[in-house]
């Protein structure tokens, strides 16, 4: 029975990664997706491998090899936590098929542990991106003892168990807090932003916390000793210290066992208890009549702001852009010093390129928003409402794009203004930076809509799947990022002639592409929308 559950979980995981709609993917598409995932995996492994090889080459001869594993396990844990903290909430406690499975003669612990097993597998995948290259790099640049190598393998097994236990616990708490609130979306989003803010603060100040990365001679992460757990890991592997490994193993196993025991015991209660939120009283009043276009746009905006999963995944660029802009404004002086330092070093007035850099930042961050891409997938069972309405699909698609632009533009403009003020850029280049970024926001809206229409995903139970997975989302995000990089690289050359030329080129190119997409939506996409889901 447990095997059957596991098989179905694996099938769902596989389908979520490779299947783009109810229709089966062709082998070609599957191969393409596998190659894409493999490429990303290899890229991360290579990047971490090179980093840890460099660290090992310096730290091992100094007798500080433990720092390599302390740092690697810290990054791996952060990655696992980051990857699973919100997934556990939706996959375990709010999964759509919990009630169905509980109605079957299946022991609840099987359901709980089959879900845990999949999440654990995902965590192992994430951990492998960091720990494996670190272990290999250390093996090449340094040397393992037999016991140290054994501890490395055991540590690899234990880390995801600890992170999963912690993320499950936090996910459960978030789930309880959110369910008691009237506006769950705001609560979950605030928790997410707080988590993000801490994460960025931590990453940006990692040197201050744990050590120095400025140059090879002063490379030092001895501050990691204060974290105990990561120090124990490093000491166990690099110095084959059995006592350190024992401390780490106990610190990982005991909390994990307690957490899994509690969650398993309370699983049925957690997933079946309906926590009632305060009832909203209906006040009779005459509502304003909106045009069809406004009604559709408002509906899309409403859709976005009532789903924390939608905000946190498809609006990541907005969240990160505003956080980074605020962080930059707090570090105004050091940024200004960096600009003037670079100017004197290169004997060029770098300050005139600052607006270009701000625009590049805006372009790249905007490309991380993909609000329109999952919007058709999210219609799913509600698609009949739009399809049976007396509204042209062109109007529907345009309303979705408008909603995207309305949501993203204010935050984008505010972020760029904050950066321009912080870096003291003149008015006209600042204005142009804003226009360039807004052109990217509009491009993102159209491109995402195109991907969403071409590759809708309707086989989801939990809306997280629609906003996180599938070819539409994946393609819109990476396609948008790729496009932003192309624009940035092309603009670097153009800005050597004149930054204004670079600005103008980006705006014109984005505008032309948006017009082409618009023409397609007006003429070719009508039938495509009408026949969706057949």
């Amino acid at each position, binding site marked *: 029975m447990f095997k059957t559950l596991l098989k179905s979980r694996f099938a769902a995981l596989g389908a979520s990664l490779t299947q783009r709609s109810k229709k089966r993917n062709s082998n070609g598409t599957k191969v393409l997706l596998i190659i894409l995932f493999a490429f990303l995996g290899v890229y991360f492994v290579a990047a971490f491998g090179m980093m840890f090889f460099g660290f090992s080459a310096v730290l091992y001869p100094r007798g500080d090899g433990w720092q390599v594993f302390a740092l690697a396990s810290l990054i791996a844990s952060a990655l696992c936590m980051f990857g699973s903290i919100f997934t556990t909430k939706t996959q375990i406690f709010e999964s759509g098929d919990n009630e169905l499975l509980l109605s079957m003669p299946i022991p609840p612990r099987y359901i709980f542990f089959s879900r845990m097993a999949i999440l654990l597998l995902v965590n192992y995948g994430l951990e492998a991106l960091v720990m494996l290259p670190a272990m290999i790099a250390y093996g090449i640049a340094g040397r393992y003892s037999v016991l140290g190598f054994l501890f490395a393998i055991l540590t690899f097994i234990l880390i995801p168990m600890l992170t999963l236990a912690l993320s499950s616990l936090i996910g459960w708490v978030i789930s309880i807090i959110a369910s008691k609130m009237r506006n769950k979306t705001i609560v979950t989003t605030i928790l997410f932003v707080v988590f993000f803010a801490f994460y960025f603060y931590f990453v940006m100040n990692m040197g201050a916390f744990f050590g120095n990365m400025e140059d090879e001679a002063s490379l030092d992460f001895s501050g990691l000793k204060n974290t105990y757990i990561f120090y124990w890991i490093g000491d166990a592997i690099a110095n084959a210290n059995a006592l350190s490994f024992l401390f780490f193993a106990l610190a990982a196993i005991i909390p994990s066992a307690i957490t899994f025991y509690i969650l398993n015991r309370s699983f049925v209660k957690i997933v079946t208890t309906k926590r009632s939120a305060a009832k909203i*009283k*209906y006040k009779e009043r*005459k509502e304003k009549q909106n045009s069809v276009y406004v009604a559709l746009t408002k509906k899309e905006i*409403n859709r976005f702001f009532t789903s924390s999963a939608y905000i946190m995944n498809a609006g990541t660029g907005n969240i990160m852009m505003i956080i980074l802009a605020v962080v930059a404004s707090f570090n105004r002086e050091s940024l200004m010093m960096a600009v003037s330092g670079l100017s004197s070093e290169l004997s060029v007035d770098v300050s005139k390129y600052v607006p270009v850099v701000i625009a590049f930042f805006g372009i790249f961050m905007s490309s991380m928003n993909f609000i329109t891409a999952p919007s058709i997938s999210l219609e799913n069972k509600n698609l*009949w409402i739009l*399809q049976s*309405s007396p509204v042209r699909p062109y109007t529907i698609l345009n309303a979705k794009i408008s909603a995207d632009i309305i949501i993203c533009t204010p935050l984008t403009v505010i972020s760029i203004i904050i950066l321009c003020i912080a870096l003291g850029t003149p008015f006209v280049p600042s204005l142009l930076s804003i226009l360039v970024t807004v052109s990217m926001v509009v491009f993102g809206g159209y491109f995402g809509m195109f991907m969403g229409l071409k590759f809708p995903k309707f086989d989801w139970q939990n809306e997280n799947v629609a906003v996180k997975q599938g070819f539409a989302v994946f393609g819109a995000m990476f396609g948008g990022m790729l496009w932003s990089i192309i624009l940035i690289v092309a603009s670097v050359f153009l800005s050597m002639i004149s930054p204004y030329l670079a600005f103008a080129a980006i705006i014109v190119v984005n505008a032309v592409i948006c017009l082409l997409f618009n023409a397609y939506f007006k003429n070719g996409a009508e039938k495509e929308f009408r026949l969706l889901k057949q």
Partner: protein
Amino acid sequence: MLNISHLTKTYGEKKAVDDLSLHIKPGEMYAFIGHNGAGKTTTIKSCCGLLDFDDGDIYIDGISIKDDPIECKKRIAYIPDNPDLYEFMSGIKYLNFVGDIYGVKKDERFEKVKKYADMFEITNDLAQPISSYSHGMKQKLAIISALIHSPKLLIMDEPFVGLDPKAAFLLKEEMKKLCEAGGAIFFSTHVLEVAEKICNKIAIIKNGKLIVSGDMEEVKGDESLESVFLELEG
């Protein structure tokens, strides 16, 4: 009001609807019955412009759904077999959304929402998110959203599923009123007693083919609709 002419729809090799013709005039209430998988939902969805079909045509108020689907949809209200509504909206927001889409004026909308919400006893729940509604409440909301824009043709797929007896009674009353006002209704149902009691027309479909259609009294004669249906299906 609704003229289905030689409708044919195939899924791969299977003919879901095979050369089906049906004419529904203003004032008529047409029950559409058949076993599971007979082609009822396919026919209904084709009439609402939700499905493309291979052959034939469908006219709403004389307008072809193929040529001008938007004009046709302005005259129709459709209630699907499962009331999947926007769960992120509150009941009142959904009704206002539908009102906006169909251009229902502010005052008229207010009156109708009040009338139907009071009638179906969901006024106090209108500010609640639809995600908190029971199946029956969602069905009631879907019915209200269909009625607030005064459609000429009401097309429903199993409208009585999930409704409590009082709501089912109220729906039947509203259906009668709509037909008396010159509208027409075409709906599928498995509740033969309801069809027999309130409909003046009946169509029976079997394996995609229309096997009988016409006046209720003529089709069933002295027998019950159930025995006629079972006889024809057998």
